[in-house]
């Protein structure tokens, strides 16, 4: 009976979602209350479940496919984090979505997503995990789709890209089953050689596609513009990171037997480094608050993948710590973006400016979280980034360099964003702008405070959440809390941050405004060409895929014409010939029928006698 408690993280959000679905749109207060109460209930539940070890199993389809759940430290942590952010986002959305017609659908999708993510994280069977994982695809599509008239295209794009990732995952699951004959995650131990390597690549692609890493990232900037803002704060910023990185570390640490000197580790680090540098460069040149943030949502995944990919304790702890930190500051940054959007009516940086005066609380939250994401001590992002850097340096200088470049550009782009939105002179005619309502401020303040807390007292999250995931054996008795151990790295980081500040000053002076502080990088000789191409979607795998499929369709069309010819011309001619023959055979005269039959009988008899006597 006790094990059935494990079903509650899945059933409670589903029940709440269905309840909301049944209510008419008019009962706005009831919908808000149910969603808030439901998410609060799940938060309480996940707090109670945290630090427990439970499992639950129910035979489902046979062939090793079971509905089995397993709660242990890591999954309990992810469930807790997801519930916490859903609660805060629901509180925020209650205010933010007040005038929106789609708020009911949003809550339904949000709660269903929570049920799916809980199911996927708790599943101890690859197929039941796949079931919940694929369920997220539906809510992903739905949440983007409700954003507005133009969002259908983006929703389709997200759906297809995520679907490709899920397909990889599905194939990987099939290969895993083929290799080891079991689907139970806790029983899988696969060496990454031969076909096991293919399984690893496929599962990894599924995981990083969910996390939104390159090259599966291109829907996120589009969704930032088209989808409802709370969606950005909860799905790409929180859910997908939590689930994707959770699964990535499961496959890297538990399912596959990997060592730091394997090619798989190298692959992960390369993907991570590329994602960090390229996504953040794109962020630097954005001129829209939300779109800029969305590129950071991609670039930060790079740190996590890099950290986990190093497969050394410092890197893994750093990667996982960065995951939870990123979820915090990134969703808070999106929430400040939402506050700006709601109060100022736009997120276009060309039209924003001087908000510091009107929205001081939002500004403070922005400053704290931007400092966190840029890795300014003593905020949480600093500590996790230092750990990732330490791990990366252990594996190779080039990876460390990528992390440092990322840090530089991150700091530069947030200086630019903050300067343009909050400090520059106001360009907006609609004055005065008021501070955001209290229900939107509470989540922002809470998360910003946590960012400070997790930084200053970093032994709390590290000892409570992160380090037990690896266990004492893997940690080798080391403790990563407190100040970074390698003070040289800290000095370099601080120098890089100062460099970013100087660069910003230089840019502002040269171009005269915060918005244009990065123009000198944007318009640097070779870079401008690349940036322009990238902005126009030349490097977007989705567009490339679309072009390929257009080409394929053209070939298929010609092929289709050919087949049409066969059907419309050739077959008709042939059938006319045959019909004519059949007609002449069936000339209506019984004499010819008799002759045919008798001739055929003769032939049959001769055939039988000849071949049977011969034998």
């Amino acid at each position, binding site marked *: 009976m006790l094990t059935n408690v494990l079903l509650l993280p899945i059933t409670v959000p589903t029940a709440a979602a269905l309840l909301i679905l049944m209510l008419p749109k008019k009962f706005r207060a009831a919908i808000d209350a149910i969603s808030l109460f439901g998410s609060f209930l799940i938060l309480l539940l996940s707090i109670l479940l945290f630090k427990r070890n439970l499992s639950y199993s129910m035979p489902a389809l046979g062939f090793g496919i079971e509905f089995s759940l397993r709660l242990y430290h890591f999954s309990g942590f992810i469930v807790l984090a997801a519930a916490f952010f859903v609660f805060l986002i629901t509180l925020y959305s209650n205010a933010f979505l007040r005038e929106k017609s789609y708020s009911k659908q949003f809550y339904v999708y949000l709660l269903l997503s929570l049920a799916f993510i809980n199911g996927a994280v708790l599943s101890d069977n690859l197929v039941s995990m796949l079931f919940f994982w694929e369920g997220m695809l539906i809510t992903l599509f739905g949440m983007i789709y409700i954003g507005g008239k133009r969002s259908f295209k983006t929703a389709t794009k997200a759906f297809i890209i995520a679907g490709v990732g899920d397909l990889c995952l599905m194939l990987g699951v099939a290969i895993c089953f083929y290799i080891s004959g079991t689907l139970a995650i806790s029983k899988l131990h696969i060496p990454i050689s031969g076909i096991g390597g293919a399984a690893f690549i496929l599962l990894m692609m599924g995981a990083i596609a969910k996390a939104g890493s390159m090259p599966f990232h291109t829907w996120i900037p589009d969704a930032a513009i088209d989808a409802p803002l709370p969606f950005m704060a909860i799905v790409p910023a929180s859910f997908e990171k939590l689930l994707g990185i959770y699964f990535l570390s499961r496959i890297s640490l538990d399912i596959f037997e990997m060592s730091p000197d394997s090619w798989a580790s190298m692959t992960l680090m390369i993907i991570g480094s590329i994602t960090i540098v390229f996504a953040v460069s794109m962020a630097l040149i954005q001129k829209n608050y939300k779109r800029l943030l969305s590129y950071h949502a991609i670039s930060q995944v790079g740190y996590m993948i890099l950290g986990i990919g190093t497969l050394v304790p410092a890197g893994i702890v750093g990667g996982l710590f960065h995951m939870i930190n990123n979820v915090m500051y990134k969703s808070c940054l999106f929430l400040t973006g939402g506050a700006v959007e709601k109060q100022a009516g736009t997120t276009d940086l060309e039209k924003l400016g001087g908000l510091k005066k009107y929205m001081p609380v939002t500004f403070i939250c922005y400053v704290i979280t931007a400092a966190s994401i840029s890795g300014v001590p003593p905020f949480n992002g600093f500590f996790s980034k230092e750990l990732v850097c330490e791990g990366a340096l252990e594996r190779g200088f080039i990876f460390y360099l990528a992390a440092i470049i990322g840090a530089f550009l991150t700091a530069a782009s947030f200086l630019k964003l903050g300067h343009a939105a909050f400090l520059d002179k106001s360009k907006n005619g609609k004055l005065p702008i008021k501070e955001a309502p209290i229900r939107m401020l509470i989540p922002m303040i809470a998360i910003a405070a946590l960012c400070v807390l997790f930084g200053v007292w970093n032994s709390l999250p590290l000892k409570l959440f992160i380090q037990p995931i690896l266990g004492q054996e893997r940690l080798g008795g080391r403790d990563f809390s407190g100040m970074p151990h390698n003070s040289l790295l800290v000095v370099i980081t601080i120098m890089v941050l100062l460099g970013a500040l100087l660069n910003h000053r230089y840019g502002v002076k040269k171009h005269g405004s915060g918005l244009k502080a990065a123009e000198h990088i944007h318009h640097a000789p070779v870079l401008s060409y690349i940036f322009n191409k990238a902005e126009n979607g030349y490097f977007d795998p989705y567009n490339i895929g679309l072009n390929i499929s257009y080409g394929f369709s053209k070939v298929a069309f010609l092929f289709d014409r050919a087949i049409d010819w066969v*059907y419309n011309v050739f*077959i008709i001619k*042939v*059938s*006319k010939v*045959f*019909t*004519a023959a*059949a007609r002449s*055979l*069936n000339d*209506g005269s*019984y004499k*010819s*029928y*008799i002759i*045919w*039959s*008798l*001739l*055929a*009988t003769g032939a*049959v*008899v001769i*055939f*039988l*006698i000849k*071949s*049977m*006597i011969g*034998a």
Partner: protein
Amino acid sequence: MPSLLVLIPLFGIILLNLPFRRLNEKYVFWFAVFLLSVQILFTISHHSLFWQQGMGYIDSFFKVDFAIDSLSFIMLLCIAIVSMVSLSVSRYTIPDPRERFKFINLLMIAAIGMNGIVITKDLFSLYVFLEITALSSVVLIAFQKDMNALEGAFKYLILSSIATIMMLFSIALILLVSPGTSFAVIAAALKESPNSAVIIFAMGIFICGLFIKGGLVPFHGWLPDAYTAAPSAVSILLAGIVTKVCGIYTAIRVIAFVFGFNEVIKSLFMFIGLFSILIGALAALGQKDLKRLLAYSSISQVGYIILGFGTGTALGMAGAVFHIFNHAVFKSLLFVNAAAVEKRIGSSDLDRMGGLSYRMPITGSTSVIGVLSTCGIPPLAGFWSKLVIIIALWQSGHYMYGTIAVLASILTLAYLLLMQRKAFFGKLPKELENLKDLKEVGPEFTLPSIILAMITISVGVFFPFVFDKFVVPIKSIFMQ
């Protein structure tokens, strides 16, 4: 007591024809319905006492095998279902009660003949029952007594007599080596003297006689003319069951249980089967007449049955029998719909039809199911039987035959979709638009259509169950 399947209708008909003609004309329909439904009920419940009880003297008189196997059950079920449908249609198409009385009598005689064919275990009795069926069919084809009907009936009569003469001659020759005419005796005798030219000649002409009865290419000449000339109710009966029982079932029974398989006979059957599939389908593709198109389609489908049977494996033969059942269901369905259309627009010319689905929605939509099942579209019944046949072909190593059989189902799709589009989809032509009573004919047509469509769907959807209950037992009887 399977003999009762022959005896009760026989005495019933004799009694009905003696006194009280007027009264009997009223009730003969319900009498026939009652008999056929009893037959359906008994065949569905295999294990009832009815089948296990012998009748001693009577059984031996009819040379009836009272221990009936699954193959015969399926055939008895098909006979009852199709006859029932034909009966239902006749209630509308033959309004005059006196005429209908005659029709039902003949129908029951045909049913007696077919039941007899299925339950007998004696080659000569088989011949007698074949003749009973053939003669009643001839009269049924000529029922309308117009020029076309008489011509069709005459052709069937001539060809059918040639077939029976060949069979009778064959039986006479077989008696040269066999002490009796029962299946078991002949089978034992043939085993001892297999390779004499005379016996092979006898087997050859017997098989060809069956081919004529079954309407396989190139023995099929009579079939399109007869199907087209016959009244609708009779077309259903002929296409659905008569040719299958007289030709195909008999071939299966006689080859598998009496003559015995060998490679030569297998290759002969497979060749004839494939030839019929292709010629039937190609000829159907160019037909302008709905009933004629269905007649050629029938030839093509019978080809599949013979092809599956020709593999000689238990699975192939089970698939063939399953396809007989499915064919009986979906072809009767299509013929019922054809009859409904013909009744309403007074012709079966496809060029004069179009858009009939708007006015006859039930006919149109059940026709879609029949068409899809014929083409072998999953999950309808026809898909599974074709699949079983093709798997059997593949397993027995006849890859070429298997491939062509699959490709030929594209041809099936082509001509049937053409038919469906011309008749039921698209726009109503001008001259039909003014036709006032262009609507569903009535429950006599729609009810059988719906029931047959439901059977097609449910057999397809519950295929695992059907496979267990019907196909596996059939497979097991061929295993021996």
